């Protein structure tokens, strides 16, 4: 007779067997003090792209805070020291006229499946991207490479020659050297050649050990809220003696959620590093209240590492509102950068007067253009001078103190993406105090409004130069001054033929050519005279790092790399083997 007790007993036994049995298959655990836990900021509370490890997919935002750091570049670049670090390759040479680059590969790197990394893998990756850039255009970096590269040729077993469509002395810094969000990920040809459509290839299969990379990690888990990268037993770089074998046994990356949540997690020592917190006061509280937490600048302001995204107030040069240079110069004078930085960043930043971020390699250019900035009043707060310029432009202040011309008050909406919400209202208020009827707006539409050139004024960064001034200068070339409606993230849409000629000339010279200095001054003289934009401040990534379990983080005293782990160059892969257990 089957009664209720019998049924319940059988069910209990069955459930116990299932749980016990399944538990035997569960993943091995690693002690916390050998595990690095990274909380990366992704847009959703969970990872959206589970099982996607294709570095060229446009949907790589989950992957970029984790698996991207398994891929190794031909060269790393440390902007703190202006240092190119050979990695999978040992060096490169340009043809005399910069129409080709010859890259020498290192002997010895192997893929995680044991096969050797060869020049054929480099050729395969480049040709795949170039074919895509010329055809479907659905892979990252494809279009840029297709425009730049004519042919890729194997010279010998260790050497590849890349012929360019146009001479370009900066090709290596655009594609072959990895830093910040610049650089490529090299793919194993023996796997990818059978992948079919590369945009649809997920490059993920734990059973097969995919993604196959040359780094010291293998992915053992990828769910909607965790990525596990476990240390491999062998790594070519450790064997070659160019890097220590990582002491981290497992890297766990989790979706960090909001900044508040990430701050809570690092404050309670749950995680070891989190994405950029941005708000200087929050970081100050973190480093003050938890002595184990540090930043790139330790417990001192600005609590972070300089980024290539200095903030400016951009004028929309396609709008007649800013056609008069006197108005643009007046607005430059109306901005009190010190007050802005004190109010929005608790004093933890530096004012700028040019579009260049203050990296050491750009210091000569920044110093050279300082007298021009002073001459043209760029970066100089002087409200009286601003009022004079507005008068010259034909404006008079009305009863409400707002500048008016032909009965029309000068009004402007300042659009900005949310990350600039701290500074936006202060800029608007400063302009308002000086007679510009400005208001700040940051909505989900703001990015698109800025992108399509449909804004009055916008606050935005640059992503231009890091190693030499050309990239920032090139952003203002007339070829980037798209008509309104055509999308671009170079917001200025400014054009000047004389400026173009100088920038074209710089583009033909190697970054170390001494002639560049005077050309930069000539170009920036036009830029400053025209008051193309109003530079405001440097941009810092304020990344809190916890030393409860791991030490050896990159700092100002030991600036071996940037601590930002989300850069698509994968530069954090260089940091991981250098972290040491705290005990």
């Amino acid at each position: 007779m089957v009664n209720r007790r019998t049924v319940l007993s059988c069910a209990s036994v069955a459930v116990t067997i299932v749980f016990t049995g399944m538990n035997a298959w569960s993943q091995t655990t690693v002690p916390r003090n050998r595990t690095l836990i990274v909380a990366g900021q992704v847009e959703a509370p969970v990872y959206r792209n589970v099982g996607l490890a294709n570095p060229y997919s446009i949907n790589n935002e989950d992957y970029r805070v984790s698996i991207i750091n398994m891929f190794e570049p031909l060269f790393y670049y440390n902007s703190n020291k202006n240092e190119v670090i050979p990695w999978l390759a040992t060096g490169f040479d340009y043809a005399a006229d910069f129409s080709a680059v010859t890259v020498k590969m290192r002997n010895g790197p192997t893929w995680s499946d044991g096969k050797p990394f060869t020049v054929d893998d480099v050729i395969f990756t480049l040709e795949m991207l170039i074919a895509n850039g010329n055809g479907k255009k659905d892979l990252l970096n494809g279009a840029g490479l297709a425009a730049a590269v004519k042919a890729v040729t194997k010279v010998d077993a260790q050497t590849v020659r890349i012929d360019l469509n146009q001479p370009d002395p900066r090709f290596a810094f655009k594609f072959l050297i990895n830093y910040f969000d610049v650089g490529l990920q090299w793919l194993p040809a023996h796997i990818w050649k059978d992948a079919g459509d590369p945009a649809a290839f997920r490059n993920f299969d734990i059973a097969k050990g995919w993604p196959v990379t040359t780094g010291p990690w293998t992915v053992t888990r990828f769910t909607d809220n965790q990525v596990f990268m476990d240390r491999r037993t062998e790594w070519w770089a450790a064997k070659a003696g160019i890097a220590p074998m990582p002491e981290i046994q497992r890297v766990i990356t989790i979706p960090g959620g909001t900044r508040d949540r990430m701050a809570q997690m690092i404050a309670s020592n749950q995680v070891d590093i989190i994405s950029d917190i941005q708000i200087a006061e929050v970081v100050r509280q973190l480093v003050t209240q938890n002595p184990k937490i540090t930043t790139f600048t330790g417990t001192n302001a600005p609590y972070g590492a300089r980024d290539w995204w200095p903030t400016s107030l951009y004028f929309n040069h396609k709008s007649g509102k800013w056609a008069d240079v006197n108005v643009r110069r007046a607005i430059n004078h109306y901005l009190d950068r010190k007050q802005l930085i004190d109010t929005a960043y608790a004093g933890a930043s530096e004012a700028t007067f040019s579009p260049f971020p203050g990296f050491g390699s750009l210091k000569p250019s920044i110093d050279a253009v300082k007298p021009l900035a002073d001459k043209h009043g760029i970066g100089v707060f002087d409200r009286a001078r601003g009022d004079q310029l507005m008068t010259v432009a034909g404006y008079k202040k009305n009863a409400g103190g707002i500048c008016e011309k032909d009965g029309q008050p000068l009004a402007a909406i300042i659009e900005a993406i949310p990350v600039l919400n701290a500074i936006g209202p202060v800029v608007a208020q400063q302009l308002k105090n000086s007679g510009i009827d400005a208001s700040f707006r940051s909505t989900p539409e703001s990015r698109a409004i800025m992108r399509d050139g449909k804004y009055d004024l916008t606050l935005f960064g640059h992503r231009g130069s890091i190693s030499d001034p050309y990239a920032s200068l090139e952003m203002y070339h007339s070829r980037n001054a798209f008509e309104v409606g055509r999308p671009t993230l170079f917001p200025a849409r400014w054009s000047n033929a004389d400026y173009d000629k100088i920038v074209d000339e710089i583009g033909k010279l190697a970054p170390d050519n001494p002639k560049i200095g005077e050309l930069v001054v000539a170009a920036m003289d036009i830029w400053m005279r025209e008051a193309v934009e109003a530079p405001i401040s440097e941009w810092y990534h304020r990344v809190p790092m916890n030393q409860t379990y791991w030490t050896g983080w990159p700092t100002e005293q030991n600036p071996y790399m940037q601590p930002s782990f989300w850069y698509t160059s994968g530069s954090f892969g260089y940091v991981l083997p250098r972290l040491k257990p705290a005990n």
Partner: protein
Amino acid sequence: MLVRLILQKILMLLAVVWAAGTLNFFIPRLAPKNPIAEKLTQMAGTSGVDPTKIQEMSEAFNAKFGLDRPLWQQYLSYLGDMAQFDFGYSITKYPVRVADLIAAALPWTLGLMISTTLIAFVLGTLLGAAAGWKRNSRILQILSPLIMVFSAIPFYLLGLVLIYFLAAKAGWFPISGGHGIVSIPEWSWEFAREVLHHAVLPSISIIIASIGTWAIGMRSMMVNVQGEDYMTFAEAKGLKPWRLFLRYGMRNALLPQATALALYFGHVVNGAVLVEIVFSYPGLGSLLLDSIKLFDFPTIYGIVFILTLTVAISMLAIDLIYPLLDPRVRVGGLNG
């Protein structure tokens, strides 16, 4: 006659699904946004997309996802795909298929919503029945207004209050997530305990907020039932109070509750979207919100289609089952 009636109901179901599906297609398209351009703009701001090549890449991806075709053609393709349950690929998660995304999120939502709905139904119904039966009870007189107050508070607001007091202040429960940040999902007691621990606050917020709805409905039904002749007759026969309560009162009052429960289950897949967001709970609601924010049309279409279908089918099921439960609503009765 019966076959004809069933066919009529099925035709009605198809019409409802078509109408809802059509709205589902066109409403997201009213916003002047292109998900591809939005995505590429974001990528250009962070990686790998040349800031000056957004337009060229957008055109390539629009062609890939069929967004470059006239809207009517896209609509016809959409109807054909939905009829075959082929939701295609997600735009923002390409090359992941929408069906896989739904399959991954569904268990979290169903687990949370079915268990909380059943608990709230049982507790609310019992409470409502008792409140309707013993209207002079002091405890129930105090409880009734409280229940009404809680039923008026939205899930998510209650969730925030619970997080503040029980998670942030007391530290008894985790603030968010479906399980611990470094734990490995597996078939183990430890993990099951952790999942339950994480589910406590979202569950409580749903149960407290919905218990009142069930209780109020049941209470009014019990009051109605008490005035029926058969109750007077049963009482006159000298039946015991508990028998009167259970067999004559609750049993008859339960029918509309059961109907409401069946309807409610049709909505279970909707999840408590805001609760999932407040608690970072990885269910269907979070997925839908995420897709709406990014204008991921195929994922929005897939999820809303599933929701429409579950609600429509549950309504059809009620239409068909109701006459079996209640002899007063038989087919003949309908004709009469």
